[in-house]
């Protein structure tokens, strides 16, 4: 397929610096995306690795990073009611559209309201309209991000706090940091382990990328999700490549998925066989290409097919 221009290059333009990002996503989770991304990071020449699956970050379990710097990630605010000042008028309860305010019995027998921090979306409506000025609105710490040295070189990864939102922002931050490191160390390839799904974090991991690789499975669910993921890549005008993992579980379905992928304008770049050696490698904290397991050959062929090693002329 023709290499299309990316419309939504992030500020600072990856293009100017010659840094190219390969984003590995899956649509449906658990297709082996992380195992493939880690193996590609080992095959790539001097990559920077970014784990953007911040919700279930597993890449570090394969690439043994040594953390060099940790940073808190703050995003948004949360409402906190000062029980001592609350009049129990219930205005916040009426206005909150997220069911985040609970009415309880106050200390003096009257009513009082409390905020459920897991439900608060930080919109600030209650804060603004509380007649007693009883609601504070502090910044929210949502997780942390780390810069590390992994077996493959620099790695940026993160840990999103439980029940946190704004993972899209954290994904953008991890990518931005990975690009910065790449520029600083004269590296041109960034391998991104993307988030599952098609929502905000995935959109944040895709915009401005040079290439997206979708790792899917030959299942009805995989087929169904692939269409949605490719629609998303199309939406952002990013060249897409598709690879079917565990293809021999259902060869007919593999053909169907490959046909559908090609019809949607994606490149079909390889198949990976079902191989218990993937789990065996994981138990040893290695990627499949660092062990002699059967599917390592498939992943090497996939990397060659991707052609990411020698950047295309722009």
């Amino acid at each position, binding site marked *: 397929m023709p290499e299309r221009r990316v419309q939504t290059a992030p500020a600072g333009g990856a293009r100017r610096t010659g840094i190219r990002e390969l984003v590995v996503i899956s649509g*449906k989770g658990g297709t082996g995306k992380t195992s493939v991304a880690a193996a590609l990071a080992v095959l790539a020449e001097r990559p920077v690795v970014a784990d953007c699956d911040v*919700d279930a970050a597993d890449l570090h379990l394969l690439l043994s990073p040594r953390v060099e710097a940790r940073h808190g990630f703050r995003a948004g605010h949360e409402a906190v009611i000062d029980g001592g000042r609350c009049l129990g008028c219930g205005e916040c309860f009426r206005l909150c559209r997220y069911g985040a305010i609970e009415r309880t019995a106050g200390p003096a027998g009257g009513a009082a309201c409390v905020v459920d921090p*897991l439900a608060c979306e930080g*919109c600030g*409506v209650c804060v603004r309209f509380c007649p007693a000025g009883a609601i504070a609105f502090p910044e929210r710490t949502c997780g942390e991000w780390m810069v590390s040295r992994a077996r493959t070189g620099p790695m940026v990864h993160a840990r999103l706090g*439980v029940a946190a939102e704004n993972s899209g922002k954290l994904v953008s931050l991890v990518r931005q940091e990975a690009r910065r490191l790449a520029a600083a160390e004269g590296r041109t390839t960034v391998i991104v382990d993307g988030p599952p799904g098609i*929502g905000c974090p995935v*959109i944040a991991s895709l915009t401005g990328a040079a290439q997206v690789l979708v790792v899917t499975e030959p299942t*009805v669910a995989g087929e169904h999700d692939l269409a949605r993921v490719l629609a998303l890549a199309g939406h952002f005008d990013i060249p897409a490549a598709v690879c079917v993992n565990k293809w021999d579980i259902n060869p007919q379905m593999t053909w169907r998925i490959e046909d559908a992928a090609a019809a949607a304008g994606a490149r079909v770049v390889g198949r990976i066989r*079902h191989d218990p050696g993937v789990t065996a490698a994981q138990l040893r904290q290695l990627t499949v290409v660092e062990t002699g397991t059967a599917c390592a050959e498939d992943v090497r062929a996939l990397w060659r097919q991707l052609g990411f090693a020698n950047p295309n002329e722009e």
Partner: protein
Amino acid sequence: MIVAIASGKGGTGKTTVAVNLARLLGGGVHLLDCDVEEPNDHLFLPGTNGAAEPVTLPVPEVDQQRCDACGACSDFCAYHAIVSFGIKPLVFPELCHGCGGCALVCPRQAIREVPRRIGEIRTVEAGGVTLVQGRIDVGVPSSPPLIRAVRARAPAQGMTLVDAPPGTSCPVVAAVRGADLVVLVTEPTPFGLHDLELAVALVRELGIPCGVVINRAGSGDDRVHAFCRREGLPILAQIPDDRRIAEACSRGRLVVEALPEYEPLFRQLSGRVTHFAPTQRC
């Protein structure tokens, strides 16, 4: 009773557990597919499709006549979804969370809220199972409002299963909140263990009892078992690592139908789930 099926990451067999449980429970059970980015349950439970009902979020619309470009709405919005730089404001509907704040703060009543479509809900009658499926539109960044709309379809009485989205962030909270029990599905691998630890932390934060289903048992090691023992988490079922299960799922077949020898295992799980003692806090 509301039972949520969840997992710290995707692909652990959450959907397999949800759909097979729903089939065995039958008799009016509701299955709410809250994995709205990738709803898959209908692939395993074909039935008669109801009409798709759109789900909307209220977003602001500015009356250009009334607005005097004071900027109060723009100053207020926590998500930069309505922006005015000394001019009449622009609305970015894809950033709007529908909180209603801008309309409330506008001193000239220049803002009215209009519905914006974010996805749809479809109800499928599948042989005794009422499947309620949410599906978010491509390009809509925030799924919790749609998930909450799906969750609102849980009947007051009877058994409801919730197929939660994977992960541990806000969409999962929207799906799992208020459930009586969370069933966490995992694999006996380092990835599975790591993601289970995060999921357990989330469920504890929400104060909901939980149990664990170990899928592909025998494929990895016993660190997940040890973790469950240490943390006092009941193991509700272990589904063996059997390639035929993967093959059946790849065709959209229910395990309990394609491989009847596994029916007792799922029956036992369904018994443990329905009679889960609420004192077993995790």
